[in-house]
């Protein structure tokens, strides 16, 4: 059975894809059935993924190699694309994590989406999403990966815009797609360059060839390729400056936010960089770029998150920030730290998003945290699981986030990136602060009398509990003392970093400081006087942060003024110059010359006869005086 699952890992993405097809063409009118089909599809995928992952992690030879098989997709002289499956510890971990989180979210969604007219459609979309994501993860070919990459983008577009009647949802969906498209432009260029330079897009083959890239190209070109490829992840994983779509993406239904914008899709960028680490690691400057982008994004998003008011937006910026951490880890060369954080993050962030969804259902989609408060009494399960998530993300041992974040910080320090380490550490403090600000404001303190919250039904709370458990124990696979994780998932050499107690203790202190500050400002101080005073005092900074550094406005301006303006210009050029002057000008010239010549057309027979005879005369003279033979023709050959 395990062998079968490993040899037929393509079934993992195929099952949800089948569910999508079945729902769209057969079961769409029956909501319960559709949900059943979707859940069956993803759970089936999970079972296969789990078996395949079990197979991978019980065969020690997989630490060195991977299982690759595929079929020809298209071929022509100079371009061969095989699609296939590449099963190694990293992808095995990913399919396990993705299908697990997806399964939980699907079950959660059966409760959350109840009564929505687009219930079946929703499940078809998420099934397609899961299929695409699993395809992306398992791909053995960069182009195949790109297919999955774009398909998850499509699903994200459809799901963000799921509430089609909302203009904000529609705009957010568009924004997400276009932003990712801009990034994909870079990725596509990178892929093209790889294809042209190395003649293949097969990941194992590329890895081999890039290791000896000097035979093919210069380091400068490879740097350019690396930067281009990195553009893709910047968009998909919401790194600065293309992070703008991610917070807006919260317009979608909450399970979507949990699924796409927390646990799975947004980490695709990180995963891609991880997969392509053989490319980046050849180019130190590219690695620096990845690391700096990651660290900066982490800090940048965390500062914005401090001032936001909507519960899902805070989580969204926190996601951006955490993705920055993962990038940072990759940039300093540690695949295992990055993947480890991705693993733990998937659990606690999905948990928090689903908790937020639970809160929103209870409060009828009132999203402002300042209007919540004291929810812990009415919604204990939601509240306490959320607290677990909060502890995990803040990095309090023994919760999952502590181990992974700690590993990232330690790696950054070990690789002598002191500035980046400081940024990461400060971000850890900010993370603890804003997350606990959210928790104190929403779940503790005084109840808002306008709210009448009720605890959510079992199919929403059970996934919460499971995820809370995972968010607690999920990090124990990678403790510094017995690091099973990095024995399996690593790049280059297995990392045997000794436990760095200094970093551990320091990060815990920072996290506790953040929580304490939030506790003082938002729990002890019931009237929030100090918080407001702070906002007043640093009004400029506060507004800047609250308005997300005005980046959206800049983009909007660029889009409207520059892009639309020039589009208008092109269009006017087209209708007035190309069409107006050249095409219609030619037409008008023809017509006008016709009008001019029309004067000669008097319509009077005698005029015509006159001209006719003139013509005869001219021809006769011309023939008679031009050549003897012509004259002979005219005069009957008697000359």
């Amino acid at each position, binding site marked *: 059975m395990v062998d079968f699952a490993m040899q037929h890992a393509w079934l993992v993405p195929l099952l949800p894809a089948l569910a999508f097809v079945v729902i769209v063409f057969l079961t769409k009118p029956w909501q319960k059935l559709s949900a059943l089909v979707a859940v069956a599809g993803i759970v089936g995928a999970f079972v296969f993924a789990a078996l395949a992952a079990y197979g991978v992690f019980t065969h020690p030879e997989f630490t060195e190699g991977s299982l690759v098989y595929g079929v*020809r*997709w*298209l*071929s*022509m*002289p*100079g*371009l061969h694309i095989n699609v296939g499956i590449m099963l190694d510890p990293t992808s095995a971990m990913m399919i396990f994590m993705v299908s697990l989180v997806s399964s939980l979210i699907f079950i959660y969604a059966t409760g959350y989406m109840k009564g929505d007219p687009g219930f079946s459609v929703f499940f078809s979309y998420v099934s397609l999403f899961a299929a695409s994501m699993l395809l992306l993860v398992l791909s053995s070919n960069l*182009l195949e990966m*790109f*297919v999955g*990459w*774009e*398909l998850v983008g*499509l699903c994200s*577009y459809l799901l963000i*815009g799921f509430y*089609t*009647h*909302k*203009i904000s*949802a*529609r*705009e957010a*969906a*568009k924004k997400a*797609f*276009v932003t990712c*498209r*801009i990034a*994909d*432009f870079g990725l*596509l*260029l990178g892929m*093209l*360059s790889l*294809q*042209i330079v190395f003649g293949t897009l097969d990941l194992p083959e590329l890895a081999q060839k890039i290791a000896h890239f000097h035979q093919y190209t210069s380091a400068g070109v490879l740097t350019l390729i690396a930067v281009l490829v990195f553009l893709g992840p910047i968009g998909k994983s919401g790194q600065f400056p293309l992070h703008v779509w991610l917070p807006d993406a919260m317009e979608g239904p909450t399970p979507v936010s949990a699924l796409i914008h927390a646990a799975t899709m947004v980490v695709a960028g990180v995963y891609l960089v991880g997969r392509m680490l053989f490319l980046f690691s050849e180019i130190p400057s590219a690695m620096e770029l990845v690391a700096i982008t990651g660290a900066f994004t982490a800090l940048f998003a965390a500062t914005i998150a401090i001032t936001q008011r909507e519960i899902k937006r805070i989580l969204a910026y926190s996601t951006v920030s955490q993705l920055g951490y993962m990038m940072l880890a990759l940039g300093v060369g540690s695949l295992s730290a990055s993947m480890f954080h991705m693993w733990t993050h998937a659990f606690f962030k999905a948990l928090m998003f689903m908790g937020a969804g639970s809160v929103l259902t209870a409060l009828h989609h009132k999203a402002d945290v300042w209007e919540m408060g004291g929810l812990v009494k009415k919604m204990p399960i939601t509240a306490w699981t959320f607290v677990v998530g909060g502890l995990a993300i803040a990095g309090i041992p023994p919760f999952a986030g502590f181990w992974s974040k700690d590993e990232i910080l330690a790696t950054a320090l070990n690789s002598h990136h002191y500035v980046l380490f400081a940024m990461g550490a400060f971000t850890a403090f900010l993370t603890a602060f804003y997350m606990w600000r959210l928790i104190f404001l929403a779940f503790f303190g005084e109840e808002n009398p306008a709210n009448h919250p009720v605890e959510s039904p079992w199919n929403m709370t059970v996934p919460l509990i499971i995820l809370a458990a995972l968010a607690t124990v999920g990090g124990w696979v990678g403790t510094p003392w017995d690091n099973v994780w990095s024995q399996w998932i690593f790049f280059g050499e297995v990392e045997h970093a000794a436990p760095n107690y200094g970093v551990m203790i320091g990060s815990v202190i920072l996290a506790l400081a953040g929580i304490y500050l939030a506790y003082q400002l938002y729990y002890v101080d019931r009237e929030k006087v100090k918080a407001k005073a702070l906002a007043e005092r640093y009004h400029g900074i506060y507004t800047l942060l609250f308005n997300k550094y005005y980046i959206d406005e800049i983009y909007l301006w660029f889009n409207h003024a520059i*892009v*639309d303006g*020039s*589009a*208008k210009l*092109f*269009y*006017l*050029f*087209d209708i007035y110059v*190309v*069409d107006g002057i*050249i*095409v219609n000008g030619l*037409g008008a010239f023809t017509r006008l010359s016709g009008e001019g010549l029309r004067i000669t057309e008097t319509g009077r027979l005698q005029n015509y006869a006159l001209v006719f005879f003139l013509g005869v005369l001219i021809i006769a003279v011309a023939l008679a005086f031009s050549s003897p033979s012509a004259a002979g023709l005219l005069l009957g050959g008697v000359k």
Partner: protein
Amino acid sequence: MEGFPVLLITLLSPVLAALILTFIPRDENKLIKCIAAVGTFISMALSLYVYFAYDKSLGGLQFVMQVPWIKDLGVTFFLGVDGISLPMLLLTNLIGFSAVFASWNVDHRPKDFFILLLLLIAGVMGTFIAQDLFIFLLFYEVVVIPIYILVIIWGSTKRVTKEYAGMKLTIYLLIGSGFLLVGVIALFMKTTAIAGVPDMSFTGLAEAGRRLGAFDQKWLFALMLFGFGSLLSMWPFHSWSPDGYAGAPTAVSMIHAGVLKKIGGYGLIRIALFVLPVGAKFWAPLIAVLGVCGVAYAAMAALAQKDLKYIVGYSSVSHMGYVLLAIGSMSVIGLNGAVANMFAHGVMAALFFSMIGFIYEKTHTRWIPDMGGLARQTPRLAAGFMLAAMASLGLPGLVSFIPEFTIFVASFKVYGGLAVIAIAGIIITALYVLRAGANTLFGPPRHEYDHLKDIHGPELVPLAVLGTALVVGGLLPFLLFDMVNSGIVPLMAQINGALQMVGGVF
């Protein structure tokens, strides 16, 4: 099936249906449409059969049929298909069949409409299976007349009147074909002088044509480039395309954008490139530059449009820019991409136009600000529209992605920075396509459209046929590419051989 004239029957089936239609009373509305559907269905089924029965390992022309016609001009009625013409043949019939159903609600003089439509389909088909230049031109001219009549009678007047649109379309086509004709006649005279015997078949022309001097090849190719280019809406000869499509009835837009336009690209590869390789090599950079101009320019212009058909009109100019860019790269990968992209764009544009046609039929508007939220009222229509939109922006998993990718590979290799501009076109494409989709389908539903009926029954056929082609072609690209490749590789080998013979010229 040995000796069975499949191609001839494929070609004649719509003509026969048109003939039968002339004997049907004009108020037998349903019957007329059914006969038209049957006629096109036979063609579609046969071309599918031919597509899969074609022996790719053997390559070359198959299903050949040859009847000498005008001996003095070396004209033979020569039908045959290879890897380049087969996708086009299949495309024609897929779209033709769908177009009949897309015009299922035509109630104004349906008999005349369907007779002309069937003749149009047959004419387009003929250009793709003719292996003789004379026959090719003959079919090409056959196509022009029905188009004109269809546009001026059944068209719609928006920014420009339908008469203007029809005139513009027709005159552009005729000007293009005029230049083409000059080129063809000159080519014929020169090749006859070289070969000694007149021969109008592509292979015959090619053999003699390649022996032409560089100068002759250059100016002949320029004439052909202009002729085929204006048919392909090559920038700056593109302005008939948006106006023409906007004025034309749905079925004509589908066929025109879907296949008729592709005659230009097909001819460019099949005739101009094949016969005059040295000229092609000389003009290739120009073709590429014009292609890139078309991509960027039309995409930007599409961004400023508010009429759905204008958006697709400009977008098709933009997509044809990719084809030109690919042709300009003069490589196996590029030409593979060019032919495949023509197929992909054909399916996509036809689906797009049929969906827009239904939207227009139901809401009586194509003006985007007047619409919104149609996804709620007509979900299937919305699904079709989005499918086409996604194909248009080159979503992987749909038919247009791989062709675009191959074009990018080829052109990036040859032209580098120039190709980057074209690749950047995918961003703009995404922007305008998504804008159009979002503003039409999403957002708050409008109550005046609450009563709209979603597409149903026969109206679903275009979505089903073309949608299937989009998805199958996208998921199994080798179905398309193996076929195209089997045609392009020998073609390119011959071209390269001819280029090496004259080597040193460049």
